[in-house]
């Protein structure tokens, strides 16, 4: 390591109205290393990096690059200082070609005209150098997710980034794509570049980093070298107490199949087949996890079961009742509880209060009606019970849901959905973007519901979650189940299946 760090951030403080997003944060990075920023959503990782990249201006603190004080006021000045950023959501223009995306914002050698031929040539060079092969003439929307990420990295390399910020770069990749990405990143550090890695996937952090800085509520709460750190030690640094990464699961005798799907075929929003001949049974007292990279039909599967999307062929039954293409209200009457993946979009109404959101599926029930009018006393009692039981942290029952944290909204939705006695529970991405404490609680509730003889379908992109919760795992790829396996399967095998390899081929290696 060189003596002078390539980046020093000292005492960075950034305030937003009512929020202290970064509170006197110190962070540094040496050439040739990977320094991870670890923390939960809202811990201030992204804010700190946006300050570094010139998207935000710090209220206090100073930054030095290679020992020289700098002020970075815009992405342009960040790029001029050889800082590159791979954003969590791809910053690509879908309708432009790879070469155009790379050339965007750069000076052209042909003046006012684009010089895409020269750019394409260099893209191919960089690609072969770093294992990032890509067709420069391809239009971005045609690319697979892993390829889009290559374009993002090439964009930064093309601009001669020496310091690269990677904001949750693995969120949408299969395990194999992650391995490939890490190879590229290792090559970049070997070339003397410095990388800042942002993630909450602990095993990836351990695999890639040299050093780890932990943020919580805007402050640095932990620092460690990777040597000697474990997933459990990192998790407790993030949360500030010991956490259970996987819930304790009691033995439960599985019963009959409460959710039966046969030959399901569904057409997606763009008119293409998104679910293609899918068969699946979920028995009472078991949790079936659906693993897969998002966009392989998981969302459509959940929506079709819930009656929110029509099946073109096949049948779905819940506890013996055929609910194929039934109205959502009929499907619920058959005993379905549904926690959708978009908690703000589909799971709750942001402007409605906590009490109103808790009432949403029961608003026609006699229990809460008095001569056709809402019975507010009954509603308040009911919602207070649920809020207490599910430990939803809210200032009052009259607080609009959108001002709660993600974890609390998720707990509220779970409380509403489990307030009946469901035969089947579908939980789609139940802990995506929620803090570890709430995730721990949600997992505990799902396991408890399993003991109540509910058949549970958990759809998740998070393999840790899938492994921790599931009794059986179904891997979904392009609208099909690639195989149903138990939890003794390795991550590598699951990764191959997520990329479209069948169980038999995956086991053969």
């Amino acid at each position, binding site marked *: 390591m060189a003596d002078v760090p390539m980046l020093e951030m000292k005492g960075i403080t950034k305030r937003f109205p009512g929020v202290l997003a970064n509170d006197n944060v110190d962070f540094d990075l040496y050439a040739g290393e990977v320094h991870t920023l670890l923390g939960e959503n809202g811990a201030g990782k992204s804010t700190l990096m946006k300050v570094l990249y010139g998207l935000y201006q710090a209220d206090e603190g100073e930054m030095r690059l290679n020992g020289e004080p700098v002020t970075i006021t815009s992405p342009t000045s960040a*790029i001029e200082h050889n800082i590159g950023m791979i954003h969590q959501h791809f910053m690509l223009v879908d309708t432009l070609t790879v070469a155009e995306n790379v050339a965007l*914002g750069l000076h052209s050698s042909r003046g006012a005209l684009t010089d895409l031929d020269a750019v394409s040539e260099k893209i191919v060079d960089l690609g072969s150098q770093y294992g990032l092969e890509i067709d420069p003439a391809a239009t971005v929307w045609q690319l697979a997710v892993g390829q889009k990420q290559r374009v993002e990295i090439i*964009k930064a390399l093309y601009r001669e980034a020496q310091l690269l910020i990677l904001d949750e770069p693995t969120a949408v990749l299969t395990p194999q794509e992650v391995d490939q990405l890490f190879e590229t990143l290792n090559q970049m550090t070997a070339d003397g570049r410095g990388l800042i890695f942002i993630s909450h996937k602990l095993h990836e952090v351990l695999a890639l980093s040299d050093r780890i800085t932990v943020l919580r509520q805007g402050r640095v709460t932990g620092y460690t070298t990777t040597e000697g750190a474990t997933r459990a030690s990192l998790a407790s640094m993030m949360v500030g107490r010991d956490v259970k990464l996987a819930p304790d699961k009691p033995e439960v005798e599985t019963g009959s199949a409460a959710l039966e799907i046969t030959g399901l075929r569904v057409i997606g929003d763009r008119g293409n087949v998104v679910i293609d001949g899918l068969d699946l049974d979920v028995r009472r007292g078991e949790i079936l996890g659906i693993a897969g990279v998002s966009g392989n039909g998981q969302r459509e599967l959940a929506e079709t079961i819930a009656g929110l999307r029509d099946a073109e062929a096949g049948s779905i039954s819940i506890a013996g009742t055929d609910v194929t293409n039934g109205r959502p209200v009929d499907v619920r009457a058959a005993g379905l509880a549904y926690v959708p993946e978009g908690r703000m979009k589909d799971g709750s109404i942001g402007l409605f209060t906590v009490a109103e959101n808790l009432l949403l599926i029961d608003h026609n029930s006699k229990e809460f009606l008095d001569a056709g009018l809402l019975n507010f006393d009954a509603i308040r009692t009911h919602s207070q019970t649920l809020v207490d039981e599910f430990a939803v942290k809210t200032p009052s029952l009259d607080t609009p849901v959108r001002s709660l944290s993600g974890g609390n909204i998720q707990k509220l939705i779970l409380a509403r959905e489990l307030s009946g006695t469901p035969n089947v529970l579908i939980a789609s991405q139940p802990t995506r973007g929620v803090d570890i404490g709430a995730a721990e609680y949600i997992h505990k509730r799902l396991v408890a519901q399993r003991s109540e003889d509910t058949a549970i379908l958990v759809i998740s992109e998070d393999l840790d979650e899938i492994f921790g919760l599931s009794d059986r795992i179904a891997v979904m790829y392009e609208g099909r189940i690639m195989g149903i396996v138990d939890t003794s399967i390795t991550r590598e095998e699951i990764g191959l299946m997520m990329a479209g390899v069948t169980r038999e081929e995956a086991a053969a290696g």
Partner: protein
Amino acid sequence: MSDFFTEAVLIATVAGGIRLAVPLLLAALGETFGQRSGVLNLGVDGIMLLGAFTGYYTVLKTGNVWYGLLAGIAIGIVLGLASSLISVTLQAEQGISGIGVYLFGLGMSDLLFQRLVGTPVPITKFPKIDIPGLSDIPWLGGMFFSHSVVVYLAFLSVPVAMFIINKTNFGMNIRAVGENPEAADSLGVSVSRVRYATVTIGGTLAGAAGAALAIDLGIFQQNLTNAQGFIAIALVYFGAWRPLGVMAGALLYGFVNSLVLQFKTLGIIPQSWSDIAAMAPAIITILALVIVARRFRAPSALTKPFTRGT
């Protein structure tokens, strides 16, 4: 009906269609730039009306049609900048603010006309230029090569627009900003600068379109454009945000209009039907819009103001 199929009438119909397409073509090309960058300017018709009055009044006072055209362009630039300010800097709701610009142009052009002119006085029109050699070709010469300079310029601006949008850095920036402004911003492309430029180009061409219309007719009256600015916006959708498609739409509208005018003149359409027939171009345009435009996707950021870091 046999009256229609004579050489003179057919040539006049086609030539008339091309001539009528010009204001729409100019305005719609300008609007294409704005929309490709993500800004819907509904005020086109208002800018056209003020361009038309300014052009008309300048020709009335100076007798020079080119001064008139330049005056229309100048007012277009001013109103284009004003529209940019409203949509880009002030981030007004684009579905509504443009209507304000339209109403302003509609009212202001009439007010100025009443105060400064009062009763309509005809002005000099654009001179026709016969292109040597080509204009002598039987039939085709009269249809395509015996027009005013403005007509040639308008059609010439189609390949120019295509070149700018597809082959220049500026054009690449426009497409990027209209599709994913966050991405463009993260690479140092100034979203607001690009949008100011495109909306001002739109204003400029709308001003030119208005002046071209008034000087082509040699007259001004209240609501001279008769909502052609709105048709121009529809044509941008019709043309799927591509200059060639926009040109096809403008020509379709121009020809249908020209045809209806000829039919009325020749008495093929009874007088009592003429009001209904006058709607034909709009109806055909809407039908074509419904059928054609569905297959194409609008720029993703269309009508969405951009704020960094959200």
